């Protein structure tokens, strides 16, 4: 009884007025005391429904109860049994829609869920900050070379799982940094790069080789890699292609994709004086869209000094795909939300710089195929909004580099890769795929789950082959 009477902890946060102009992490993390207190709330349910909400089925009560007992390193170990990036997922998972949405507290008690995400982050941070990061044990080398294409969460988790199983694995990354969206997309104030780097270091210690500045299909083809002895392939090349809306004026100077905007800041550190990459430090910045990427962009605009940072979203807040916490943080920092509005044209000056957006107001009609209510333009509602920078954040498409270089690789109408549901095997022999290249834009944890699943399936495939070979040899 006393457990359910406890209140859910709240996450200590940096003051909005300070953080809106700085890159410090917004969420400060729990202390050992608050974490243990929160862990007490967990009822260690006989049927832990929370686990079903987690795409990688972390043993939630087991790690939470370790925290309650003060066994923080043990808790971290439990996390690592199934997740290779717990410090990352504890920060960016949409917990409120996954594990926490399925917690007994929500389902039965109509009370706030156990703060599973905060606790996950706490255990992983504790392990890292106390210098106790355990490197998973690896089996003796099988002498089989495997190539992983892309170093986002899908690739990293695949690499970790394969290294554990004794495969000789090389991760090829097109950019000069490892981490995919975790590095070039999600900003420091939400996911510090150091957190990602520690996870990458641990993979290196497990024997994973990383080759940056290497585009598979361009620098070398899959065929070349086969000749070099690579036997198996995992494609985790992501959904990196930005979409635009195709409205007039979209190519004006000052209209850019969120990928470009975030890459300039997160990957190239254009916000720092000492680097050479330029960035537009707009005073009146409008970000088009309502997802995590849009929130990251609009909050980056504030940190670059914007006086007005606006979200323009065609539905209402209820339909926004961004995490609830991100919307809340954006509001606290002073972001303006122009919901139920949509840009229909960008207007520039004589030099081609964007100066205004023609905005149309919307209302919600019947639900569409996605189940969300369809936005309908309100006639005669158009008006002009003054801006000097526009960031378009209306979604991404799968990266076509790999499919273009492999004609046998089957793709869907949405240009994602076709894979077997169970094994994640593609139409090309010994090639598996997962993450956003298969799902379109999805989440970090789903990408990681895919990497894990593909590793399991690939290991099986090679084990069977090896067995057959040894039987033949007699």
């Amino acid at each position, binding site marked *: 009884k006393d457990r359910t009477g406890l209140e859910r902890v709240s996450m200590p946060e940096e003051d909005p007025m300070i953080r809106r102009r700085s890159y410090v992490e917004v969420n400060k993390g729990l202390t050992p005391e608050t974490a243990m207190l929160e862990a007490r709330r967990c009822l260690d349910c006989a049927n832990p429904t929370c686990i079903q909400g987690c795409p990688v089925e972390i043993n939630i009560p087991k790690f939470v109860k370790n925290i309650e007992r003060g066994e923080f390193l043990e808790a971290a170990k439990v996390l690592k049994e199934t997740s290779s990036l717990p410090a990352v997922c504890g920060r960016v998972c949409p917990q409120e829609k996954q594990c926490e949405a399925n917690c007994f507290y929500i389902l039965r008690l109509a009370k706030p869920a156990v703060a599973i995400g905060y606790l996950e982050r706490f255990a992983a941070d504790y392990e890292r900050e106390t210098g106790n990061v355990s490197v998973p044990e690896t089996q003796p080398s099988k002498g089989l070379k495997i190539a992983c294409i892309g170093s986002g969460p899908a690739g990293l988790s695949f690499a970790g799982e394969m290294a554990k199983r004794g495969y000789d694995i090389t991760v090829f990354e*097109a*950019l*000069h940094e490892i981490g995919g969206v975790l590095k*070039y997309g999600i900003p420091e104030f939400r996911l510090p790069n150091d957190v990602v780097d520690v996870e990458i270091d641990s993979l290196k210690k497990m024997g994973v080789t990383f080759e*940056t*500045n*290497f*585009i598979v299909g*361009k*620098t*070398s*083809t899959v065929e*070349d890699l086969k000749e070099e002895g690579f036997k198996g392939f995992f494609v985790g090349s992501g959904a*990196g*292609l*930005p979409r*635009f809306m*195709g409205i007039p004026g*979209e*190519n*004006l*100077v*000052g209209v*850019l*994709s969120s*990928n*470009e905007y975030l*890459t*300039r800041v997160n990957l*190239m*550190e254009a916000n720092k004086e*000492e*680097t*050479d*990459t*330029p*960035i*537009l430090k707009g005073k009146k910045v409008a970000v088009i869209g309502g997802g995590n990427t849009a929130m990251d962009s609009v909050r980056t605009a504030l940190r670059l000094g914007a006086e007005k940072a606006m979200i323009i979203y065609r539905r209402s807040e209820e339909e926004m795909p961004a995490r609830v916490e991100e919307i809340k943080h954006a509001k606290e920092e002073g972001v303006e939300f122009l919901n139920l509005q949509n840009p229909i044209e960008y207007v520039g000056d004589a*030099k*081609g710089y964007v100066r205004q957006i023609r905005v149309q107001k919307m209302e919600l009609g019947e639900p569409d195929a996605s189940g969300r209510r369809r936005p309908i333009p309100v006639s005669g509602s158009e008006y002009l909004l003054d801006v000097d920078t526009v960031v378009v954040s209306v979604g991404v498409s799968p*990266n*076509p*580099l790999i499919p273009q270089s492999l004609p046998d690789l089957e793709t869907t109408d949405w240009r994602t890769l076709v894979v077997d549901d169970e094994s994640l095997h593609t139409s090309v022999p010994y090639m598996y795929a997962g993450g956003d290249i298969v799902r379109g834009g999805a989440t970090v944890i789903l990408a990681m789950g895919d990497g894990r699943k593909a590793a399991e399936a690939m290991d099986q495939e090679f084990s069977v082959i090896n067995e057959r070979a040894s039987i033949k040899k007699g």
Partner: protein
Amino acid sequence: MNKVVSKDYFSENVVRLEIEAPRIAKSRRAGHFVILRVDEKGERIPLTISSSDTAKGTITLVVQKVGVSSKKLCALKPGDCISDLVGPLGQATEVKKTGTVLACGGGVGVAPLLPIVEANKKAGNKVISIIAARSKDLIILEDQIREFSDDVIVMTDDGSYGEKGLITEGMEKVIAREKVDEAVIIGPAIMMKFASEVTRKHEIPSIASLNTIMVDGTGMCGACRVTVDGKTKFVCVDGPEFDAHKVDFDEMLMRLSGYRDFEKEANERYQKDQ
């Protein structure tokens, strides 16, 4: 890390660098480019692969000093390393046997033109090259272009070398003189705009190689977008070569100036520090 193997000056402001990159040397075709970052603080800039040596495992870049990044690159000495180099990027040039090809290169655009001239010659075409620049010291690679051309016309704006005049005048002369089946146009955006007006007028199919602002070079950012035939294209993955008559050069020129204030300031700061 990629090592600079050798370095030559074409002029004070145009430098040829040979850089170690064995895989790229092997995979690259005419028309491809690389993106590099000189040092840890550097920006990512695209440069055409002018030639390669698969035996030595090197590629050659021809770089014109225009701002901070190109100056930092040109300041490197043999033995120094650049921190990142990725490629080969873009679609390779499609070279067919078409007959007579007019190859037009302006300024440092002659560097990316060279492998295309070579490929056209090897495909059995008659190649007439026009290389043009503001003045004599900016004319580069003349001997190399001559090696693969049937005829070469050199032009300078100020008449300090070759014929005096703009590249468009040289083009008009050739077109008046003989039948041209195809044109390849590479140079500053403004030059490409006017050169493609000439071939449009004479209905000569033309290719231009676009040099838009880039960041990743893999199709991820959209910084390099241009309008071709009314549709948005990404130069790094769809190009860099397009039908010159369908490119919206005015939009491209406008987008190239997007960061000019920043670049000017950065350049002044860099000069002061030297």
